């Protein structure tokens, strides 16, 4: 099954090239050049992973991550950053980021993290389904 991902970065050139390269690797890529647009897209669609730039105009990556997680706690978010400080990294993990990658990143690393994110999402979905089935079984007394 194709990986469905959303890349969020205010660098349009970066978005154009990385989406071409990931599409060539059989991924279904959507892009957003602002946090506002990214939040809108996650409200309207479902993604296996979101690759999010930490430093963006108007709303930074951490704030965006927080809103995204509030809207969809199962969303797997990989943060990309030009200058990761330890503090920012810890804050990102506390807010529920799956990983933090420093720019410029090797595409193989990004692809690997996207695959891991998808696996993580499948596990979470399976756990939720199992819980729901157990609840139904208990309620119905079967």
């Amino acid at each position: 099954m194709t990986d469905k991902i959303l890349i969020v970065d205010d660098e349009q050139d970066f978005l154009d090239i990385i989406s071409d390269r990931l599409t060539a690797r059989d991924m279904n890529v959507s892009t957003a050049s602002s946090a506002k647009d990214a939040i809108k897209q996650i409200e309207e669609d479902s993604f296996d992973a979101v690759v999010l730039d930490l430093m963006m105009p108007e709303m930074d990556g951490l704030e965006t991550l927080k809103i995204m997680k509030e809207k969809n706690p199962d969303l797997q978010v990989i943060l990309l950053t030009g200058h990761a400080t330890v503090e920012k990294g810890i804050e990102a993990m506390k807010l529920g980021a799956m990983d933090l990658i420093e720019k410029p990143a090797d595409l193989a690393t990004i692809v690997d993290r996207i695959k891991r994110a998808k696996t993580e999402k499948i596990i979470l979905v399976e756990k939720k389904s199992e819980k729901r089935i157990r609840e139904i079984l208990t309620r119905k007394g079967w």
Partner: protein
Amino acid sequence: MSNMIDPLGEAGLQFYSKVSASISHEIKNSLAVLNESAGYLEDVTLMAKKGMEINMERLESLAGTMLKQVQRTNGIVTNMNRLAHSLDDPASQVDLNALLELMISLSERTTVTRGFKVSAAFSDSAITITTHPFFLENLIWLILDFAMNITGDEKTIAMVPTKTESGAEINFTGLDKMTENAFNDFLTQHVRLILAALHCTLQPNENIGKITLHVPGNITHPVQ
């Protein structure tokens, strides 16, 4: 330990490190685009080796992108170099237009990230003064940082330099939410020390949301 730190030097270092962090972020962004471009060329080479058709138009546009990023990085490094050299002499001749242009470039990432727009109405002719360029840059950085907390809803700050009898002045406008208290809070020890070192004065006008920075024509012979 803190008693051993020279406050003026500390203010300068804080400014320099903030600019360096912002610049390194910009360079990293540019490098990320160049890195992906090189990766794209690798992908295309592999595809060509397998006999797949090459999209020449895409390659042409990629070359344009790479060139644009090299020019962008060169601009960033040139500005960093100008800032670094502004510490060379304690007093040197500068054109305020050029200095403000440099400050707009150096602060762009910070201001844009916070959703602000900083502009300058440059004078047609050079406004030449003799000052300590680094500390004047530091002072303008601090004023812009303060200004971002007190602008109106338009989030726009304008800088207007003009020549005066005693030297020059820079008007910072768009500070619609400035109050007397906010301005007094801005006058920290660092700001006061820089103002004294540069023989500059700051004059707020809360009614029209403006701060005027008066700069002497020659720091080595300031008019008292």
